[in-house]
């Protein structure tokens, strides 16, 4: 794999089209992701940001086909990757792609690792599944991978159990496993949320360096707008299962078009802000999946609501590569 500079249309390596994912629950079928589309480009980082329940993690699980069974189901849409549709791929072929061509990093490294196996065994397993039949070779490659993610004395660490490592070290192991087979895409769901800020800085730095070296595409799912601003090239803002706004990171932060994006950016306390001043808020709370309003899903919290909002707004272009789903984006006051 070679590093790339400027993105082009043919650099799209993962394309999600009109994804609909539902969960069958005691109270009926709930639609967690409702018609989400985006493209992931080689060498670029796409951030998906939103609050709890917005469907960002379910989107990631859908791509990996790791939805909780039997409740979770992809009801519609396509997930195009290297000429195939992951949404309908048979499980046997999926196994080759998961952990091979697409790597995964989850929020809590302790739950992603097996607590009763040394990490060396877990790391070699990835190579045994996808690359080699020789256990000694797999072990050697695993040791090399640990070195690459900056773990000191990897030969010794290979024999240790997850509980013997710190949170930051464990997340490095998970990253090593995700990158072991030089995937084309890595999907990282809140990879630094469980970590302290100084450790978060180490991990983000590591991911960016590895991305540069390997030309990886990264899908980074987070609720932290700071992490988005510092690591992503493109951003998708999700709200209640739909895309509210998407575009290049500078456009999203400088010229947010959707009232929800504006509300999010306005409500975070900033280091350069005035102390003890009243923060701007988004009134109310996210509606539950059971009682989503018809039309625009943000309408019950939106300060700009009008009658038109009772019909669902489609995503429309508001700038180069920048889309928002709001009827009134042209009429909103400048920020």
């Amino acid at each position: 794999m070679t590093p790339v500079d400027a993105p082009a249309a043919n650099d799209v390596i993962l394309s999600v089209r009109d994804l609909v994912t539902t969960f069958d629950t005691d109270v009926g079928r709930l639609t967690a992701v409702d018609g989400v589309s985006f493209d992931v480009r080689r060498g670029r980082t796409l951030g998906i940001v939103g609050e709890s329940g917005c469907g960002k993690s379910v989107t990631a699980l859908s791509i990996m086909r790791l939805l909780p069974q039997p409740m979770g189901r992809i009801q519609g849409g396509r997930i195009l990757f290297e000429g195939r549709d992951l949404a309908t791929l048979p499980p046997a072929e999926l196994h080759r792609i998961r952990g091979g061509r697409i790597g995964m990093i989850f929020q809590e490294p302790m739950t992603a690792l097996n607590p009763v196996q040394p990490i060396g065994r877990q790391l070699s397993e990835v190579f045994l599944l996808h690359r080699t039949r020789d256990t000694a070779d797999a072990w050697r490659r695993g040791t090399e991978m640990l070195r690459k993610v900056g773990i000191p004395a990897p030969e010794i660490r290979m024999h240790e159990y997850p509980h013997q490592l710190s949170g930051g070290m464990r997340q490095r192991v998970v990253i090593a496993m995700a990158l072991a087979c030089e995937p084309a895409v890595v999907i990282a769901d809140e990879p630094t949320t469980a970590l302290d800020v100084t450790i978060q800085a180490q991990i983000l730095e590591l991911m960016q360096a590895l991305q540069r070296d390997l030309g990886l595409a990264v899908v980074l799912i987070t609720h932290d707008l700071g992490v988005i601003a510092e690591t992503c090239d493109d951003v998708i803002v999700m709200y209640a299962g739909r895309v509210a706004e998407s575009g290049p990171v500078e456009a999203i932060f400088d010229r947010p078009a959707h009232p929800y994006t504006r509300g999010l950016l306005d409500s975070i306390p900033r280091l350069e802000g005035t102390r003890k001043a009243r923060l701007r808020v988004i009134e109310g709370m996210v509606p539950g999946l059971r009682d989503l309003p018809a039309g625009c899903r943000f309408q019950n919290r939106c300060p700009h609501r009008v009658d038109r909002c009772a019909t669902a707004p489609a995503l429309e272009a508001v700038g180069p590569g920048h889309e928002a789903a709001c009827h009134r984006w042209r009429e909103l006051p400048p920020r």
Partner: protein
Amino acid sequence: MTVDTPAAPTAPLLQLEDVRMHFPVREGLFLRSTRSCRAVDGVSLQLRAGETLGLVGESGCGKSTLGKCIVRLHQPTAGRILFEGTDLAALGQAALKPWRRHLQMVFQDPVESLNARHTVGEIVAEPFVIHGEGDARERRERVLGLLEKVGLPAAAADRYPFEFSGGQRQRIGIARALALRPRLLVCDEPVSALDVSIQSQVLNLLLELQRELGLSYLFIAHNLAVVKHVSDRIAIMYLGRIVELAPADELYASPRHPYTRALLSAIPRPDPRGTRERIVLQGDVPSPISPPAGCPFHPRCPHATDRCRVEAPALRAAPGRPGHTVSCHLDL
């Protein structure tokens, strides 16, 4: 911020003197206590009436343990906790009870800190029951008043915690903490479990309550932007000790301790054009069971000298900077 208090305005509401909390580590065949975990290792600081003191540090630095020592959920191993001149650390449970009403705590997890089997009304009224205040009708009235104060409808009193969202549950926790009209609230990560759009609602509520009731806050958190927003002064904690303490704006404008500088530079800023140098610290926080000799920060410090490896620095005034103290041998 000034508030009318019986004490002179300069006298601290709360003064900690060399507070230590060492937990025994039980290990081996007979679970004998051979070593101790120095969660809090000699903390001295003051909190003035009506002031918010932010307490910042990473997991395991002892910030929550210190908060629990102050409200006496822990009995500190050593040191004095002077609340309006009375040493709470020296009091037994019975003698402590009348003081407890003045110091209350708001916890991080609004799910685990509320009894799921009690109605919200019962939860908020519990402090009245414990302290024998009022009859049933009076308690009910005060509960409704408290719910209104934290922005919840009166109907909430007859519902159960699970019926509420995270932000609303945190409001319930705040209402309970306010029931006995405390002077000091220890807020331990009160917004870190909440979504961004809800965080700002709860922060606004805490600021309003402080203005209205003249409360003092010890605000414990790891999010420096949040802490700066609410605090008058900020203390940075590392491995059980305060490494730097300064007025909030001063701390952010000219941090003196290398750890504070690294922390500040590590915060991801919501600005995609930001071009600042990030100081990435090497390694992890050492264990408080076997803290390093000398300065506790020296194994990760980019400026460490031989002196730092043997001699622990004391907290001293930063030259020419009023109210700013730092524990570092180097004059950065």
